[in-house]
């Protein structure tokens, strides 16, 4: 009798402990699964935050390169906007951090006038009338440690620098027109140096006065060609300053020379 009782007690304890172990295993599996899911979510959140940030950083660095290119020399007055796009097109910027890399490449053409979602860039995102807009392709790639989450995204954004290249370009062409008109007497064969100097000086004063309200600065130089015929080469240089770029204020300059008459 006593022996049967002991065996029964042992069996009961085996059943009780087994069910305890099984239920604990279920709790453990659930906690493990939850931790794994949380790790995955954390990886996704980390990649997503890093990707959007690096996309913005690459875009901003590209605009900084564009600023350097646009302020490095004087561009032609004719089709100034096209000139600016040619200078910027193909520029690229790459950045990397924490297993994520991002590259931004500027297209040759202009972007559309449309808002953009890279609002991290504040005023530099989106295409706006009166601004120099640049279509930028961004490529972001990354992976979370362990390779359980990978991220790859190519997008096209429109960014801008706050100036219109055509403002200085058009003004420059108009200034050349003004000079041509002021030196109209050259067509009659008149070649008096002091008369030429007075005409250029008068035109320059008018051009400078007109440039100021537009935020432009204009400079006129001229040269009289010696020889049998009388030719005057006039050169107009128009600068738009204080353009707020990512590297600080910069100057956009256009220049055109014309031989008169």
């Amino acid at each position, binding site marked *: 009798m006593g022996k049967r009782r002991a065996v029964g007690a042992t069996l009961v304890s085996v059943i009780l402990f087994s069910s305890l172990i099984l239920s*604990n295993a279920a709790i453990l599996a659930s906690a493990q699964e939850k931790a794994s899911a949380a790790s995955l979510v954390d990886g996704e959140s980390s990649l997503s935050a890093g990707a959007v940030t690096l996309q913005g950083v690459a875009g901003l660095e590209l605009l900084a390169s564009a600023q350097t290119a646009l302020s490095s020399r004087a561009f032609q007055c004719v089709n100034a906007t096209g000139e600016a796009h040619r200078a910027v097109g193909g520029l690229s910027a790459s950045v990397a951090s924490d297993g994520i890399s991002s590259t931004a490449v500027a297209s040759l053409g202009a972007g559309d006038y449309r808002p953009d979602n890279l609002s991290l860039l504040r005023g530099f995102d989106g295409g706006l009338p009166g601004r120099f807009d640049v279509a930028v392709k961004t490529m972001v790639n990354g992976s979370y440690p362990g390779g359980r989450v990978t991220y790859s995204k190519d997008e096209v954004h429109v960014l801008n620098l706050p100036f219109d290249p055509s403002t200085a370009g058009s003004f420059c062409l108009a200034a050349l027109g003004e000079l041509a008109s002021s030196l109209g007497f050259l067509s009659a064969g008149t070649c008096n140096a002091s008369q030429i100097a007075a005409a250029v000086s008068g035109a320059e004063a008018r051009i400078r006065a007109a440039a100021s309200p537009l935020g432009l600065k204009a400079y006129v130089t001229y040269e009289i060609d010696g020889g049998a015929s009388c030719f005057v080469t006039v050169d107009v240089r128009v600068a738009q300053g204080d353009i707020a770029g990512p590297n600080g204020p910069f100057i956009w300059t256009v220049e055109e020379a014309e031989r008169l008459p």
Partner: protein
Amino acid sequence: MRFLDLAAAALVAVISVSLVAFMDPLPFSAASQRYAEEAALRGLLLRIVYAEGLPWFRSATPRQICYAVEAYTNSSVTVSAVVNGISCRGPPPEGAASATLTLPFVPARVTIQAWASAGQ
């Protein structure tokens, strides 16, 4: 015979208790909580970047960056920054849930970091 029964029962009990102790779900629960905390801290860092804007972080001085990000510090979260390797304050305390967001600008590499304050 009775001795054998007792020994068997004791063995089952010892093995079972050891297994239950070994299969502790608490570390996994703590890890889940830590992941959640770190994701929340990362969300805060992203909000700070959106609030200030990338152009500002690129052009600001280290002092301005330190001042701006530390304004987000409160009783539960400490926010700091490292600009070109120079930290506004020391690193996060060992073991604290933390998150970082790096802005690798060409002029200066800016890393902003947040960690749960002690006792949280």
